[in-house]
């Protein structure tokens, strides 16, 4: 017969083991992030076709980031899939967003004066990941084709603006890391 005591003897040690494992896992991730150098973080960026990103993004927004009028778009929504590279293309952007989140974290840690902008960059990256997560969800429910044009182009446009501002941040600060960043994004 299973009693509360029996359950307690099984569940509590398992729960404790789970807590300890989670604590170690996240503390190690935190330590890895805090000890990473600028180059370490940057080396994880995956190269993307910048011209294609700009082409897709600037179809939705102009260079100042203002959304274009409906009807100004030149890209047929049915072509967006090939232009962006489908879900795989978005996953590359998502992986790069993880790197941008780390970059923002790096700036927040070492340049607290840049906190506000770094925080905005972090939120942008998280927003893109949210769009990609929605699309993955749509993929699982079979609604990807209809959802893709709506979310994918916004994700790409947000990505484009975010990278431009990240470059501007480092350019204005005359930060030596700018050259490395320019080469990758």
């Amino acid at each position, binding site marked *: 017969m299973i009693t509360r005591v029996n359950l*307690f003897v099984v569940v509590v040690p398992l729960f404790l083991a789970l*807590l*300890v494992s989670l604590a170690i896992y996240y503390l190690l991730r935190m330590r890895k992030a805090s000890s990473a150098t600028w180059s370490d973080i940057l080396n994880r960026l995956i190269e993307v076709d910048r011209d294609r990103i700009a082409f897709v993004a600037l179809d939705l927004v102009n260079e100042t980031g203002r959304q274009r009028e409906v009807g100004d778009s030149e890209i047929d929504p049915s072509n967006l899939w090939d232009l962006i590279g489908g879900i795989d293309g978005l996953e590359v952007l998502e992986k790069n967003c993880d790197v941008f989140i780390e970059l923002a974290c790096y700036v927040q840690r070492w340049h607290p*004066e840049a906190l506000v902008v770094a925080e905005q960059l972090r939120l942008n990256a998280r927003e893109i990941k949210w769009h990609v997560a929605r699309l993955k969800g749509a993929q699982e429910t079979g609604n990807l084709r209809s959802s893709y044009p709506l979310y994918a182009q916004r994700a790409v446009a947000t990505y484009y*603006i975010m990278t431009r501002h990240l470059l*501007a941040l480092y350019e204005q600060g005359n930060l030596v890391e700018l050259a490395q960043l320019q080469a990758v994004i």
Partner: protein
Amino acid sequence: MQHLSGLDLFFWVASLFGHLALLAVLWLRKRAFEFPLFTSLITMYVGRTIVLFFTLRYGSRDAYFYTYWSLAFVDVLLQLAVVYEIASHVFRPTGTWAQDLRWSFLWLLAISAVIGLGLTWLAVPPTQNLRQAIAIRGNFFSSVLMSELFIGITAMSVTMGLPWRTHVARIAQGLGTYSIIGIGIEGLHSYFGLTQGMQGYTLLSHVRIAAYLVCVIYWIVTLAQEAPESRGMPVQMQRQLRLLQRRVAFELANIKGPRGGSDH
């Protein structure tokens, strides 16, 4: 009047002086202004040690029990306040709560409480009276709740990409580690209970107190040290960054709007 062994007396004295030393560090290094709730917790511990010591030595068992549990209730409230203080430091990088935090923190609180209550319900400590059962289960619940909250905050901050400042991390690591050890100790208390006598219970309690004293020493050492210096930025750049941030916010507002359709 309760007789105290040499080891018991050592723990009482070490607790008192450890907390006093920690308070000295918090005030002299000006950490008290950054962590007022944590400082209040430690101040309460000093008062509690003195009050409980004299109640134990010169008061009745009833007096000790009610005093202990009244102060334990205050202890849990202050620990929750410290959790809030830590979360505030981590999730409010710009002075306001991070936008992507949303309801996550409240969910963390709710789920932690439910799991804590569930595990505490499973505990059936063999005791001689209700008072002992309440004592053991109350300590167990408190340890489970605090552990979950600290690990939850750590996990959320890593996922969201929010860094921890040094001293915030040290306070959280100390409290979190002590809480996890507390689960183990109180779990054993819950299993073995008090029907076999006080020896096993007292031994486990001593282990817990020793672990806590290590935690206090950890705080004294780490909070006395300065955090690593940040790399300064020229005033001109700070101004440019503020302008940049205003531009980003404006452009994002544009891009979030629908293209003649409803928003996500």
